[in-house]
């Protein structure tokens, strides 16, 4: 029987989740962390590759925690919550209104941020 798992999204990945810091994904009984990330990918295409490389390894500066316990591999069984953490430093709130050019139209940042680390 399926369950819902709450997934916490760090700042640098919120460009994929329309700036949402948490979301809920469906989880089958016995699902792994890897299965959860596949579900997350279906909701937010592209997000998985930023965390997991093409060889299936968790990227160097990404940490995954299942119900508060560090998950060092995608095969770890999913729980009720999955926290995705950026190691050492995290994201911050989006910038204020983008700075405009002096006397020029047409160049302004719009929805471009992928990483808003300070």
């Amino acid at each position, binding site marked *: 029987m399926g369950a819902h798992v709450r997934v916490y999204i760090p700042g640098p990945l919120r460009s994929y989740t329309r700036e949402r810091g948490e979301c809920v994904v469906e989880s089958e009984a016995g699902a792994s962390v890897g299965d959860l990330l596949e579900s997350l990918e279906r909701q937010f295409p592209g997000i998985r590759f930023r965390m997991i490389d093409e060889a299936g390894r968790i990227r160097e500066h990404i940490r995954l925690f299942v119900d508060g316990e560090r998950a060092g591999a995608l095969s770890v069984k999913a729980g009720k919550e999955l926290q995705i953490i950026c190691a050492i430093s995290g994201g911050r709130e989006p910038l204020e209104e983008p700075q405009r050019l002096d006397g020029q139209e047409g160049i302004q940042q719009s929805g*471009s941020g992928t990483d808003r680390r300070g």
Partner: protein
Amino acid sequence: MALSTTPRLLVGTKKGAWMLQADGARRRWNISAPICFGTSVFHIVQDPREPKRMVLSSKAGHLGPTVMVSKDGGKKWTEAKRPPAFPEGLARKSHSGVDEPRTVDHVFWLQPGHASEKGVWYAGTSPQGLFRSEDHGDTWQSVDGFNQHEKWSDWCGMKEDSPPDGARLHSINVDPRDARHLYIGMSAGGVFESCDGGATWTPLNKGCSAEFLPSPDAEYGHDPHCVRLHPLMPDRLYQQNHCGIYRMERGAGVWERIGMKMPKKVGDIGFPVVLHPRDPDTCWVFPMDGTSVWPRTSPEGKPAVYRTSNAGKSWQRQDKGMPDSNAWWTVFRQAMTADTEKRVGLYFGTTQGAVWASRDEGESWKAIAEGLPRIQSVEAAYL
């Protein structure tokens, strides 16, 4: 809609990208807000076939590499649905004897495809990988003729053989006469050529020095820093290499060291080479200190551009307006470019975050932006 008659510079830095728009005289430049702020932008390139489209390569501190695409002249950027990634199961050898999975660390070089192939782009990655998109950069496929070549490990070396910032595939050149005729450069690996759209590849390094290799006549393993094909004379290639400046007439098939005519105190080591858009005999380089431990600064702290207007028979120093001492910066391989104005404008971005411009083909220079992060690329665009 008609294109602007003034150039816009696309500047990729260690902490994001910026655009600088010239006024009609190219005297005043307005700088944009940052794009992909905080991420390392290796390259940002306009599509000359559809000038509103651009592609940008980016890597955030924590996350894997990605590509961003814009179809409105850089106002809005969207993340690629499938960035370049090696096929599963490919390995990278290590001196430890233990192979590692081969994965893309970052996308280093972006190149629009042939004029006849709208939507086609190529990307070069670190470590050395070649990828192709047929949908304006939204999804990328491995060029398996290169990435899965049986000699990939021989050509590209082991993990520890990489330059300090990582091994890279760069300088993707498409022959304007033939979409299937490609050249690439690899640091390290050398220059390679494909005549069948990337299905097969041949080393093209004859005559090129590689002082760091045991054999002076090695077939591959060289370190081209930047290779440019002249669009009006596509059988002429210029190369700024780890070991000098070279030119090849493709029919001869041998690199000729044209940097030997550079002043001995300056040498002929550097990263970029920039071609005059209409004169295949004219190009510019930006020498750096490649002596002893390779400080990679301007020689003696005195930056200068050098120009040849006779295909490398002689060189002239161009430094008017630049600091005459204590300027210990340099210019990376894709951080120098030219516009297409009647009096060609030249531009470079420095490792200390300044953009310099010349409105008179290098005869005089002026800083048009300062205080940016370390600059990794500068390209000219017209929107």
